[in-house]
């Protein structure tokens, strides 16, 4: 009886949740007998449990990467169920306890997965009202419900609570829907106007444990008999293992085993520090590859522009670009480059696997825990039913843990040793070998007529993205590659075109992908990073729009608004009207004075300027303005103020949203100012926080203004949907900062990051070509 097993397990978790606010004592997580169930999303009981004390626990198949989505899920479901927010709890992301909503990714937690959550909570309310009707002897229409108590409208003394009706018992109600996103009962969700908890800002329930030290993170898992493993990576990309001298570590304290297969090597010891020492000490002979795996990083973009593409999109053409360029009064051309930028997660990859009883339990912060379960089962040729993933919180997700190497490694090592194994990467390993956002080389042309109107736009993006790593794929995770796995069809990868609503009569938008010489077993492997291609493509396009505005001697906001309003064509999401609204809202909040860039007549070492950029992603639209100080003597850039006007439709938790937006802005600011993966012709040389700098407290803007616009033509419409809020923010910021530097200095920076030396060199030469 799988259902019974599930509810028993759930019950245990609930006790610990209410007791400690946190994830439950580890003794509760001891291996339960398999088969591990797949909670049935067509059963209401899989989603919602009502307890005898009139509280509720929600079980959802998502993971929280740090944006407080768990709090938002509780708000949405509590609202539909008509129960107080603080009488609810939320359990996420463990494969045998929660339905498979795929975990996290794509900023879809609220936009996509929130709908089945709301519908099942509405269905539970409907069922409870029917039960209340029977119990109280009046029709459902005569009842009202508040704070999980049903009462008779005409006789409020007659009442019954949810807990009294069903506490500790099961609903036994089947749901319908062809897939989990479509899961529904017969009840309808409430119109927006009736939502009371949605739109409020309850504090995140997970924060107290994170500030008092009681949070149980994935790194904290400790099991009886557990040993510690560390990897030994090839010293240069593409090296092959020749031999291992195990005697070099055999006599070290706590030594357990050297495990290797193909080019994968790990050392296992009793204690963590012993494993770290042993991995450093182990003597391994590697053979360098015959040819260079990649060009050195200063040569990357030259290489990318000269390479033959591995794939090309059919260009999207509107009008007649060639004729328009031929008739132009002025043609502007520019190349924009973005280097590889890494996740460089705050803590390196980690996981613990327990092989007890011939089963496998993986404790992981994998944001797509369900995918890890399936991937590990295939990778190790285990029955899927004997593998489960227990999700625990970890350092920021943003895509890295969707290709979770450590979980596969822990599982492999645990099976090899038949003991629980905790593995963690070291800092140099993570910074060098994590997945990278693809490098971009963009080529743009724009045609202006004699009146300064943009008549044609030609955009070509080349992404170095061949063999882009997928989500927990058993044949593309790094351990599989190092063991020799080569999928028959490596992922084609992708470039991107910008997300904007500019009405330009003649356009050509083209995308190409190129490959580095070494496509497998390389530290320059690409994966999804917080809007995988958006920051790169938007840096090019929104910087270039600014160049065109300057060439036309028109204010940057005015130039954009003219392009946005040059057509009245709309789309289903009112994206044009909402684009206009966020650009206007950002300019208004900033106090934008209308004038062309660059700003003139500045003297002294420190000059200031402002820049705007805008983008949409899906249905979410944002406009961002950066105000910068540039030190002309040192080249140092400080972004002293940021404004973000943001429209993601229905807002669930405004204060939570503001913090998510602030984090996205500053993460992107780090990519604008600091982040670049550097490498020589055989290895990545960015290996720690000195060689791969990140934003610090010193860079933090003095002021960040977030304006939640909600520019829908009818923001009170009853079916206003929420759109994905997180990643759109990351798209325009690089361009906004570059545009502000141009406004301040008159120098156009066409390559990120805007490190001091690069800015200073550009100020001296007046350009950034080939820097």
């Amino acid at each position, binding site marked *: 009886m799988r259902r019974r097993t599930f509810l028993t397990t759930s019950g245990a978790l609930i006790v610990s949740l209410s007791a400690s606010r946190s994830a439950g004592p580890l003794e509760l997580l001891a291996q339960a007998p398999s088969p591990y169930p797949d909670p049935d999303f067509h059963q209401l009981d899989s989603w919602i449990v009502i307890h005898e004390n009139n509280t509720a626990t929600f079980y959802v198949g998502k993971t929280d*990467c*740090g*944006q407080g989505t768990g709090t938002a899920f509780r708000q949405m479901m509590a609202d539909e169920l008509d129960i107080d927010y603080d009488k609810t709890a939320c359990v996420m992301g463990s494969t045998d306890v929660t339905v498979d909503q795929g975990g996290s990714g794509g900023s879809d937690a609220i936009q996509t997965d929130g709908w089945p959550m709301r519908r099942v909570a509405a269905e539970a309310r409907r069922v409870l009202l029917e039960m209340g009707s029977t119990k109280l002897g009046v029709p459902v229409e005569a009842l009202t419900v508040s704070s999980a108590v049903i009462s008779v409208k005409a006789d409020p003394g007659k009442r019954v609570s949810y807990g009294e009706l069903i506490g500790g018992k099961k609903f036994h109600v089947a749901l319908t829907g062809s897939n989990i996103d479509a899961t529904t009962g017969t009840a309808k969700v409430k119109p927006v106007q009736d939502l009371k908890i949605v739109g409020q800002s309850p*504090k*995140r329930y*997970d*924060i*107290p444990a*994170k*500030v*008092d*030290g*009681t*949070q*149980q*993170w994935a*790194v*904290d898992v*400790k099991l009886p008999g557990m040993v510690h493993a560390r990897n030994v990576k090839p010293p240069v990309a593409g090296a092959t293992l020749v031999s291992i001298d195990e005697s070099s570590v055999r006599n070290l*304290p706590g030594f357990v085993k050297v495990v290797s297969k193909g080019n994968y090597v790990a050392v296992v010891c009793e*204690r*963590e*520090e012993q494993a*770290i020492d042993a991995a450093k000490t182990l003597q391994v002979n590697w053979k360098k590859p015959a040819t260079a795996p990649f060009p050195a990083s200063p040569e990357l973009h030259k290489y990318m522009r000269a390479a033959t593409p591995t794939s090309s999109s059919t260009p999207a053409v509107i009008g007649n670009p060639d004729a328009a360029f031929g008739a132009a009064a002025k043609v502007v051309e520019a190349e924009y480059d973005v280097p590889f930028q890494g996740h*460089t*997660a*705050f*803590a*390196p990859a980690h996981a613990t696997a327990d092989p007890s009883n011939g089963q496998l339990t993986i404790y992981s912060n994998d944001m797509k825990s369900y995918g890890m379960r399936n991937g590990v089962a295939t990778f190790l040729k285990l029955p899927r039913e004997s593998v489960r993933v227990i999700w625990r*919180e*970890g*350092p*920021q*997700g943003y895509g890295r843990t969707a290709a979770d190497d450590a979980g596969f490694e822990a599982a492999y090592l645990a099976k090899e040793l038949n003991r629980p194994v905790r593995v*963690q990467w*070291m*800092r140099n390993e993570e910074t060098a070998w994590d997945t990278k956002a693809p490098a971009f080389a963009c080529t743009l042309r724009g045609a202006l007529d004699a009146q300064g109107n943009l008549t044609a736009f030609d955009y070509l993006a080349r992404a170095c993205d061949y063999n882009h790593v997928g989500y927990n794929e058993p044949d593309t995770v790094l351990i599989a590659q190092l063991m020799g796995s080569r999928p028959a069809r490596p992922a084609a990868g992708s470039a991107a075109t910008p997300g904007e609503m500019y009405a330009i009569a003649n356009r050509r938008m083209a995308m190409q992908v190129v490959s580095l010489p070494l496509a497998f077993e390389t530290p320059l492997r690409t994966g999804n990073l917080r809007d995988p291609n958006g920051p790169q493509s938007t840096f090019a396009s929104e910087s270039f729009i600014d160049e065109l505005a300057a060439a036309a001697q028109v204010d940057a906001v005015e130039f954009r608004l003219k392009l946005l309003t040059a057509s009245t064509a709309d789309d289903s999401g009112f994206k044009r009207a909402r684009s206009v609204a966020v650009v206007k809202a950002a300019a208004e909040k900033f106090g934008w004075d209308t004038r062309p860039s660059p700003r003139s007549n500045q003297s002294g070492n420190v000059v200031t300027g402002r820049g705007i950029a805008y983008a949409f992603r899906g249905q979410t639209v944002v406009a961002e303005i950066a105000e910068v100080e540039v030190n002309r003597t040192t080249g140092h850039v400080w972004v002293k103020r940021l404004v973000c006007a943001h429209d993601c439709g229905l807002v669930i938790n405004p*204060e*939570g949203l503001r*913090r*998510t937006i*602030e*984090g996205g*802005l*500053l*993460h992107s*600011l*780090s990519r604008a100012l600091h982040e670049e993966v550097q490498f020589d012709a055989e290895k990545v040389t960015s290996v*720690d*926080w*000195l060689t791969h700098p*990140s*934003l*610090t*407290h*010193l*860079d*933090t*803007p*003095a002021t960040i203004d977030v304006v939640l616009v909600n520019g829908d033509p009818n923001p009170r419409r009853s079916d206003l949907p929420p759109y994905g809020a997180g990643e759109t923010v990351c798209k325009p910021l690089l361009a906004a900062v570059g545009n502000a530097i141009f406004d301040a200095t008159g120098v156009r920076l066409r390559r990120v990051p805007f490190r001091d030396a690069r800015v200073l060199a550009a100020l001296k030469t007046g350009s950034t070509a080939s820097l």
Partner: protein
Amino acid sequence: MSTIALKVNGATHTVNVEPSTPLLYVLRNDLDLHGPKFGCGLGQCGACTVIINGVATRSCVTPVSTVRSEVTTLEGLAVGGKLHPVQQAWIDEQVPQCGFCQNGQIMTAKALLDRNPHPTDQQIREGMARTLCRCMTYYRVQAAIKRAAGERA
């Protein structure tokens, strides 16, 4: 292996480890104090910060045998179940995103405010400069420090 005595958060513990073992692993793996985290092992990020003699100290590069004074970890800040004002400010300001670095932020801020109860904005920036956050919660961290400083006034 050596037997080493440590006073942590008011209690004395004895552990049997190599003297060169970084304090971090003793705290996390022997004493089950999970506030301090591994982030880099190089003293660059601050995830492992503890307070020794009033100084925010990177436990990942501190050999356990060199520790002569009491160690305070994140778990030791609250007194009698009441959160330290810095921790409370963190909740009031809703600082964390993922929260993984926040041990370093909170412990560094606590030591900063202990030696300078009313820091200027620039002193906060400089005092926190080497404590990294990859969710980039810096804006709210700085606001929370100011809030905690204000509540001490």
